[in-house]
C-alpha cells in the first residue's frame, strides 16, 4: 500500500478537536460535567469493559477515558493502553490464586447445590428487560433511599467471603483431567509478538484483554454449530481478588490491594479412551479484569475450542488459534479499521488509473 505525506489542514484539525469538545459540552453549556465518581459507580459495567480491553486495572483512569472519548469503549481502551505504555514495568506478581477471591456473585449451571452455595449477587439475569421510566428523573435522595432499603433488610445467614471451587469437587471424583504442574513461564503479550503455534498462556492473555463483542461473536459461532463445545458453566464468579506481593522489608506476602475480576470455568464434551486412561470432561477457562460475564463465558468457550484446534487441527474458525487470536483485539482491529479514514490519495489514484486502462482495453476488444 502506498502512502503519501500530506500537508495543510492544520486549522481544520485544530477546529475538529474543538468541535469534538463542543459536542461533549453541549451547545447551551448548561449541562453539568460528568464526574468521575459518577461514571465509576453508575456506569460500572462500562468501566469494567474498558479496564479489561485496555488491559490495565485502574477504574479511575478508565472512567476518565470514557469521559474523554464520550463513551467510545474502543478509544477509551486505546487511551488506557497508551497510558500504560508510558510507565516502567516494576514487577510480575507471583501467581494469584482465585480461590481467594472475595466473591460478590457465584453461580453454577451444572449443579443446583454447590459447596458454599450459590449467590446471585448483582445481576440482571432474572430481570425483565422493560424500561424503567422513573430512572429518567432520579435525585440523590432516590439513591440514598435505594441504599437504605437494601441494607435495612438483615439476612440471617453469615457467609464466608471466599468459597471452594466447583471444579475441585469434580476433580476429586475423577471426572476431570488431572492437573500437571506447569513450569513453563507465562507468555507476555505486551512484549512478545504472537508467532504460531503459541502456548496456551499466550492465548489466555490475548483473550483476557480482547474486545468483548469480538469474543462473543466468535464464541457464538461455536455455540450455534460451527463447533461442538456444548459448554456447561461449572462456576461463574465475580469478586475482588487480593493481590499478594512480598513486603519490601520482611519479604512476607502482604496484600497490596484488590482487583475486581470475573472468572468462568466451563465443562465441555468428554473425551479420552482406554489407552489414555478413563475418559474425562474437557475444560475451558475464562477470566477478565472487571465485571464482564459475557466476556468470561465467551473466553472459556474459546479456550476449549482452541485447545481442541491445537490438538486435532481446526475444524472451524473458532478452533483456529491464528484466526481467533489475531482478530479479537479491539485496539488492533479498531486501528486498522480507522486507518481507512486517512488519506489514501495515491493508492486510490492508482486504482482509478488501472480501472480506466482496463475499461479502455475492454472497449478496444469489443
Amino acid at each position, binding site marked *: 500500500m502506498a502512502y503519501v505525506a500530506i500537508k495543510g489542514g492544520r486549522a481544520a484539525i485544530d477546529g475538529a478537536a474543538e468541535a469534538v469538545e463542543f459536542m461533549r459540552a453541549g451547545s447551551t453549556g448548561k449541562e453539568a460535567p460528568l464526574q468521575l465518581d459518577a461514571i465509576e459507580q453508575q456506569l460500572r459495567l462500562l468501566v469494567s469493559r474498558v479496564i479489561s480491553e485496555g488491559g490495565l486495572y485502574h477504574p479511575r483512569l478508565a472512567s476518565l477515558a470514557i469521559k474523554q472519548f464520550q463513551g467510545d469503549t474502543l478509544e477509551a481502551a486505546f487511551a488506557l493502553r497508551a497510558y500504560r505504555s508510558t510507565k516502567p514495568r*516494576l514487577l510480575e506478581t507471583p501467581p494469584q490464586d482465585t480461590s481467594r477471591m472475595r466473591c*460478590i456473585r457465584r453461580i453454577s449451571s451444572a449443579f443446583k447445590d454447590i459447596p458454599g452455595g450459590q449467590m446471585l449477587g448483582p445481576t440482571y439475569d432474572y430481570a425483565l428487560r422493560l424500561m424503567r421510566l422513573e430512572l429518567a428523573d432520579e435525585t440523590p435522595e432516590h439513591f440514598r433511599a435505594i441504599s437504605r432499603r437494601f441494607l435495612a433488610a438483615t439476612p440471617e445467614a453469615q457467609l464466608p467471603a471466599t468459597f471452594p471451587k466447583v471444579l475441585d469437587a469434580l476433580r476429586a471424583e475423577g471426572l476431570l483431567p488431572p492437573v500437571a504442574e506447569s513450569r513453563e513461564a507465562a507468555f*507476555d503479550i505486551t512484549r512478545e509478538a504472537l508467532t504460531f503455534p503459541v502456548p*496456551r498462556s499466550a492465548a489466555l492473555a490475548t483473550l483476557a484483554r480482547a474486545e468483548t463483542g469480538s469474543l462473543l461473536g466468535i464464541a457464538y459461532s461455536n455455540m450455534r454449530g460451527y463447533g461442538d463445545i456444548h459448554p456447561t458453566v461449572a462456576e461463574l464468579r465475580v469478586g475482588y481478588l487480593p493481590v499478594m506481593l512480598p513486603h519490601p522489608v520482611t519479604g512476607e506476602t502482604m496484600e497490596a490491594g484488590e482487583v475486581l475480576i470475573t472468572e468462568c470455568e466451563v465443562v465441555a464434551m468428554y473425551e479420552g479412551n482406554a489407552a489414555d486412561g478413563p475418559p474425562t470432561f474437557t475444560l475451558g477457562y475464562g477470566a477478565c479484569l472487571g465485571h464482564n460475564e459475557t466476556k468470561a463465558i465467551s473466553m472459556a468457550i474459546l479456550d476449549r475450542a482452541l485447545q481442541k484446534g491445537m490438538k486435532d487441527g481446526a475444524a472451524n474458525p473458532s478452533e483456529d488459534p491464528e484466526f481467533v487470536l489475531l482478530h479479537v483485539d479491539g485496539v488492533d482491529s479498531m486501528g486498522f479499521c480507522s486507518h481507512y479514514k486517512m488519506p489514501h490519495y495515491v493508492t486510490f489514484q492508482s486504482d482509478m488509473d488501472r480501472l480506466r486502462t482496463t475499461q479502455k482495453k475492454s472497449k478496444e476488444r469489443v
Partner: protein
Amino acid sequence: MNIARTDWARALGALPAEEIRAAAAQFARSLEVQDISLPQAGLGLLTLTDSAFHQPFYLGEVLVARAHVVLRTADGAEASGGAVILDDSKQLVRAMAILDAVLAAHLPGWESAATLLQRGHAVHAEMAAQRQHLLARTRVDFSILGLDEEEEEDDE
C-alpha cells in the same frame, strides 16, 4: 493493635491519601528518613493461575508503587519500613513505608499511626460487611420443579 503487618498497607489504603501523607510528614519532621531504595511507581504484570489446568498466565496489568525506608530517631534508634500498593503515587507509598516503620518499631508517637490503622481497618470491615450483605441477600436455593413433595401432592 491486633492487625497483622501484612494487612497494614491494605488498612491504610482505605483512608484518604492526604491523611496518610500528612501523618507521615508529621513523623518525618522529628525523625531522619533515609530511602533504602528510591520510591518507584509503575506497572505490575498480574499473574493468575487458571483454575481449570492450574497454568499461569497474565490477566493484565496493575499500577504498583513501592518504597523502602529506614527511620532514625534522635537517640540513634533505627527502624525499617516498607510498602507496596496498587497505586501510582510515589509520595503515598513512601508515606505508607514511613508509617510501617513507625508502627513496626513503636517509635515515639506510634499511637497516632495505630489510630489511623484502626480507622482504615474499620473502613474495610464496613466494606466487607456490605459484600457479605450482598451475598446473603442473594443466596439462592433452587429446587427442581416437580420434585418438591408439596407439588407432587398438588399434582395428585
